């Protein structure tokens, strides 16, 4: 790892002030640190935001759950409030990485990184999340821009993620056998306003599958999407799964999710 300057910010303001074109925010560091170790990323300044108290914690209101950006996966997995209101979200958190990762990794870090195979981005899309930053509010549907790309600007820091509580929901991950990231993860959420079927792992960036959602709006049962075929032409293909296999998994995982709702 190349040497860097370490800063610990006491609030979002200071974090922003410290940031530059050659800096990175550090929360759990579960992606940033391995990337730096492998020489895939180098920074002059690392700005640790773990000590900003305001950024951590869970609060539930009538219609939504707010989760602070530096809240760890374990905390989401074990939160009684979340288990009660959106159990699929706590089970998603419980299935991220391994215990070590879950004890360090944070929701804000996962979303800001926008790994094409990460779990949380699908929750954001399915649960109509609003991402609150130190500068503005961004709807999830406008947040995830492409592979490892988000609407965040340099120095912009996620503070909280607000999820809409659905009527019912389920996340079904088909894990990569090696990394246990999602080869395909399908997050189905039924809201009063409609149905979201958010897919991670299958394409370079998380997305809502409109066709599956439409079929489920007319009848929310796995039968209504059984036998549907999704287009594999712009899906990821690697040694673990071809595009064609991923396309098939999108439907099977969506069916499982509907059944588990």
């Amino acid at each position, binding site marked *: *790892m*190349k*040497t860097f300057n370490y800063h610990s910010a006491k609030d979002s303001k200071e974090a922003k002030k410290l940031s530059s074109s050659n800096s990175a925010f550090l929360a759990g560091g579960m992606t940033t640190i391995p990337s730096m170790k492998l020489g895939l990323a180098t920074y002059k300044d690392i700005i640790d935001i773990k000590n900003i108290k305001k950024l951590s914690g869970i609060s539930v209101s009538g219609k939504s759950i707010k989760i602070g950006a530096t809240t760890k996966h374990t905390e989401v997995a074990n939160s009684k409030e979340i288990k009660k209101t959106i159990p699929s979200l706590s089970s998603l958190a419980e299935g991220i990485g391994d215990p070590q990762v879950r004890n360090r990794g944070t929701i804000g870090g996962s979303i800001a990184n926008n790994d094409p195979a990460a779990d949380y981005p699908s929750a954001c899309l399915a649960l109509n999340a609003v991402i609150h930053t130190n500068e503005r509010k961004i709807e999830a549907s406008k947040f995830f821009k492409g592979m490892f790309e988000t609407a965040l600007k340099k120095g912009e820091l996620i503070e909280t993620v607000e999820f809409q509580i659905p009527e019912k929901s389920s996340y079904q991950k*088909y894990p*990569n*056998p*090696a*990394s246990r*990231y999602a080869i395909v993860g399908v997050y189905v959420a039924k809201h009063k306003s409609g149905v979201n079927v958010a897919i991670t792992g299958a394409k370079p960036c998380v997305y809502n599958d409109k066709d599956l959602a439409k079929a489920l709006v007319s009848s929310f049962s796995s039968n209504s999407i059984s036998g549907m075929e999704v287009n594999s032409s712009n899906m990821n293909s690697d*040694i*673990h*799964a*071809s595009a064609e*296999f991923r396309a*098939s*998994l999108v439907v*099977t995982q969506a069916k499982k999710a509907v059944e588990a709702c």
Partner: protein
Amino acid sequence: MASLVGSRVERKEDKRFLTGKGRYTADININNQTYAYFVRSPHARAKITKIDISKALKASGVVDVLTGEHIAKDKIGGLIAGWAIRSEDGSEMKCPPNPPLAKDNVNFVGDPIAVVFAESLEEAKAASELVNIDYKILKAVVNLSEAMKDDTIHKDIDKNLCYDWLLGDRQKVKEAFDKADKIIKLDITNNRLIPNAMEPRACVVDYNSASEEITCYTTSQNPHLSRLIMSAFGGVAPEHKLRVVAPDVGGGFGSKINLYNEEIVCSWASKKIERPIKWVAERTESFLTDTHGRDHITHAELAVTNDGKFLGFKNETIANLGAYARVFGTVTPTYLFGPCATGVYVMPAAYSNVKAVYTNTAPVDAYRGAGRPEATYTIERIVDKAAIELGMDPIEIRMKNFPTEFPFKQTLVHQIDSGDYVAGLKKAKEMADYDGFSARKKDSESKGKLRGIGVTTYFEACGIAPSPVVMMLGCGVGLWESAEVRFNPTGQVTVYTGSHSHGQSHQTTFAQIAADELGVPIENIDIVHGDTDKGTFGMGTYGSRSLTVGGIAIVNACKKIVDKGKRVAAKMLEASPDDVDFKNGEFVVANSNKKKTIGEVAFACYLPGVRDEVKSPLPEGEEPGLKESAFFDPANFSFPAGSHIAEVEIDPETGEVKLDRYTAVDDFGTIVNPTIVEGQVHGGLAQGIGQALTENAEYDETGQLITASYMDYTMPRADNLPEFNLGFTCTKATTNPLGVKGCGEAGSIGAPPTVMNAIINALDGQEIQMPATAEKVWRACKNLKKTKNKAA
């Protein structure tokens, strides 16, 4: 005193390992040490046109930078193949030079070219980026099936062919095939694996300029052999000035048999730079440069009668050696593979023909099982295919072809001293509830799942021996083992063994057998291994040889101790040595109550006199002291065998394979410690199941390893494995006094065909290749659906 052989003695190693008190090579730090970082080829095949180290030499903290040029100037020799194999036409095998640092050509990604020594690892690594190397990139030879038609990698090695080896009689096989009712044909690949020892390779080297001694701490399965090669072939230092220590080693699985480039380079360089050196591989370096395993393409044919009798067998294999031939690289796909390919069956005629080829990939060498998993996979898959084509039950066809009398002369080489394959398979069938399979299958089908059952019966040849035979077959050394047993004056015992424990629990097993032989409490026995300055020469641990060869050397040394003890006790008890019996640690004069404990005898041996009197307890001419050594060279290999049965449940929608049940019934002869043996079986099974279901080392067409991290190389995990159902049968080995056979590799030999036979059974006989990944299985399930729809 009750015998300890056969009892579940708790591991002496546990306290050390479970409390973090193990001492591994990377734990060793020497005052004033420098840190080594190797510059490696990023290309699979290239000519080196220029190496410029001037910038790196000036970088912060750099002590020195050395290249292949320096190696050549100092006439340091390279790595070698330990076995000379001849081709069918009688010609010698062809091996390229493998210098410790590549000077002119690089032949796989990770091939080391230069090394930087610096005051800190960070500085060494930073400076390594300043070593400027120009390459002329050449087309890499990667595809194994095309390698013989591709560009020639090494000068004067036509078709990239190391040898074209034959064992068996082609004519007899032809005659057998002419008589057959049916010929079963099978094409299989034995997937390439990366051993993935938990501890990456490492070495710490200390040179003492006053004594001119080099001490190399390293992650080796056989430190004496490393010293021999480094001295005799590397010319690093004479053996008496070179000490190799392999302290606690965190797994080897064959990958740490070899002496590697880094150990030679650091040992040589520590003298050159007169500083201690520390090198620890990063995980990526382990993936790239540890020797890999397996990697065969095989076409096999089995000639059968309509009622399922085997008449003859052909095995045509191309084996990948990788870029260079290493210590066991050339023997693994020949003598460790070819003879075992006829399996446990009476096979009137057979041959194995193996073409070993070079490719621009990491060297391939022994990996847990070494040749025998490949052989067992070949025969056990084709036997199952025969059962399918003949409409027979897989157990029935096996039973029909088992030998029933022992010793059994196996078709190609082995004279198998003992075994009972019928009893093993019967027991496995019962334990696996084979008859209940159809009900379980129905149950799975009612849930929309497929279910399959798979059977394997294997034998393996381990503890390679005897030395004159193995040397006649081309081995560069004898494969005996040594032991030395030393009593302290106060009665405790230290046993020095040439075997090396890197997970096998020798400290416990060997102490159990020494305790039984000497009648000394196990807590008074220490096992010492892994240091060339301590024990006599040893051959190390691989090929399930430690107990059957190394353990017996200990038994024999103990017997010599007892013999001397009898002579001394006789003198002390004023009896004839012939009248002295030894039992439970006591020398007793027949028909009397006169006795001496072995502790008293040891004491007398070291204090052979009485104060104020001229009197010795030692017989005339007997030397003082109580210490004996033995070298054991068994009369033959040992031949463990077993029957395994697996059941899988497949989700046809996702291709997920759930290994639902696994029964293994093994015959390891006498079992010294059942807990340790079960652990060995569990570990072997996990690795064998890994090969069948998940593991695959994959290179792209340019020779880049694309499975070079745990993000992509799929290790088996606990949730891939069922609760193992283990059983044992016992036919004792006749070639050693304990009746023991090897057990370390059994699981990795038996599991791949067992699991694959089960999967293929679930897929109605549709062939798929290892590893049976979800996507492959999903595609097979789609085909199955199509075929079924057509049939309907």
